């Protein structure tokens, strides 16, 4: 089973990569926050403020540089007073940035969940597709001829693995973020932000699940992993672009748009030009439709249900020769 070795390698890379990359990013990109580093930063800010004050003093005591400037009072022509506090928070004067969870937690989580969605599609399509393409499935069916059971077992196992992957990604990233915050940051998360991060993880997990099932179904219907990839690329690139330009009003029903909507907290906005003809003639305008993440979730769920039924019906009746 090539996919097995391949999966093991992938997992190994992911874990090792994570263990090396994350601390490396932490050390190189972020600054530790301790009383000592904060005192240093505060000193740097004070030094800058002193420079400003110096320049202001020189300006106030010196003569005006031009006739125009001479008409103004010294207060008007010189830089204003800038106390250290107005130069910005102390953290900005640390040698590197500070890890602020409210800025990093959500976007990185979203990116990781997108990657996970792609990964589970590939893994699912490859796993089921290789069984069908090599016809190992025939050997399996000689042992277990109940086709529905085989279908449910394979798709179900994949769904469980996908959900496990999504939960691990959320858990690992939030744990890392918490560690980052403790080591290099300042916890500025409000309860609301925690709630929306959890919701983000949940919506991402739903997309990961949809993606895994889509990979399995694509392979079941086309009988190979390559067929499933082809169908996905064809759908996302050809169908969605075509409909986006020819029938822009239908955009809100496209799987890709709904997947993006599901992942985005506030949904996505699709727009299309609309023409009104009023008394003055033609008035062009653009209509914007917000596709909410709930809309995305429901559309994807319905689509997946239909596709699963089609794939199952085809699988149940198909001659395996």
């Amino acid at each position, binding site marked *: *089973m*090539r996919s097995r070795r391949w999966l093991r390698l992938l997992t190994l890379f992911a874990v090792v990569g994570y263990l090396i990359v994350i601390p490396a990013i932490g050390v190189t990109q972020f600054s530790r926050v301790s009383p000592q580093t904060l005192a240093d930063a505060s000193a740097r800010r004070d030094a800058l403020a002193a420079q400003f004050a110096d320049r202001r003093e020189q300006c106030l005591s010196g003569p005006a540089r031009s006739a125009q400037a001479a008409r103004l009072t010294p207060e008007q022509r010189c830089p204003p007073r800038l106390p250290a506090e107005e130069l910005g928070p102390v953290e900005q004067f640390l040698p590197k940035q500070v890890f602020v969870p409210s800025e990093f937690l959500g976007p990185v989580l979203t990116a990781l969940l997108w990657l996970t969605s792609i990964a589970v599609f590939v893994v699912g399509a490859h796993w089921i597709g*290789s069984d069908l393409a*090599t016809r190992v499935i025939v*050997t399996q069916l000689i*042992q277990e*001829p109940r086709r529905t059971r085989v279908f449910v077992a394979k798709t179900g196992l994949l769904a469980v693995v996908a959900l496990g992957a999504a939960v691990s990604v959320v858990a690992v990233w939030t744990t890392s973020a918490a560690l980052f915050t403790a080591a290099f940051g300042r916890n500025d998360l409000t309860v609301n932000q925690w709630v929306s991060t959890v919701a983000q993880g949940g919506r991402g997990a739903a997309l990961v699940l949809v993606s895994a099932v889509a990979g399995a179904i694509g392979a079941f219907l086309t009988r190979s992993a390559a067929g499933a990839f082809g169908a996905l690329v064809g759908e996302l690139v050809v169908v969605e672009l075509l409909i986006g330009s020819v029938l822009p009003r239908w955009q809100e029903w496209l799987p890709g748009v709904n997947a993006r909507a599901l992942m985005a907290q506030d949904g996505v906005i699709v727009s299309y030009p609309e023409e009104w003809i009023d008394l003055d003639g033609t008035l062009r305008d653009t209509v914007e439709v917000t596709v909410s993440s709930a809309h995305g979730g429901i559309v994807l769920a319905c689509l997946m249900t239909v596709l699963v039924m089609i794939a199952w019906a085809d699988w149940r009746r198909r*001659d*395996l*020769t």
Partner: protein
Amino acid sequence: MPDAVIEISGLRKSFRRRHRPRRVALDGLDLVVPRGGVHGFLGPNGSGKTTTIRVLLGLCRPDSGRIRIMGADVPRSLPAVISELGALVETPRFHPESSGRFNLGLLARAGDLPPTRVEEVLELVGLRDRAGDAFSGYSLGMKQRLGIAAALLGRPRLVILDEPGNGLDPEGLRDVRDLIRQLGSQGHTTVLLSSHLLPEVQSVCDRVSVLARGRCVASGTVAELLAAPGDADLQVRADRHDAARAVLEDAGWQVSAMTGSGEPPSWRVHAVADRAAVTSTLAERRIYVTELIPLQRDLESAYLELTAAHSEVADALAGQAPAEARGRGRGRAQGEEGERR
């Protein structure tokens, strides 16, 4: 419990093809495989052996017909008896990058069998030394052995082997033959052995069913098949020798010259059901038989005749290209003969 492990009646199966009429693979097949021993399933390539086996295993849906395995209706009740069944269909299919042992292990785990059973069957088919190698690196014969090992994994009471000799060297053939004979003699297992090669079947089978064009054209013990009445050839010599041939052919028999039967050569009249009909037909035209010898046949010629005759009959009845090319008259004559039998 009925005494037959496989009962098939009126099985039809056709395959849909793109832009062409459906291909009929099984055309009303009847087959009974009694319990015990080795049952040969003999037929030329394309006669429908593999399709029959696929339908038996639920891999293909039949168009119509009744199938029972050990009393269970197929495909509805197949799951009830599947644990008693082991099969190798056409080419063995396994995960190419994994070892033979790993592949069998997966099957054993799925079938709740102990891992020790994997080693037992590997030993049985003589693949133990190479069991750790990747399946893709196996020779055709080794793949075939692994397929047989997989079929035997669950100690099945019915083993179906589809052309297990494919790709085996003479030594491998002998091993597999011995193995099949041994399985059949244990009393626990019935083996259905499909092959297009007569020697493979003849040397190990207790009973044989012969398939041609999706139908079972003969079934019985090897001895019965050899002695099948109505299928015997006759060696015929008559006073008006050339006229005799013309008369016999007009009457619908297939006639050929027998080499090594003197000068002029005797006629071989093929597949004669009723010897008296030959003499009386000739007598009506005032031709008198001087020599009439029933020919003892070997299974080889019985097999060739059975399958060849049926192919031509089927061609003729279906009005398909080969018969048309050969000429309508002859095709029809043979068709009538086929019906008479």
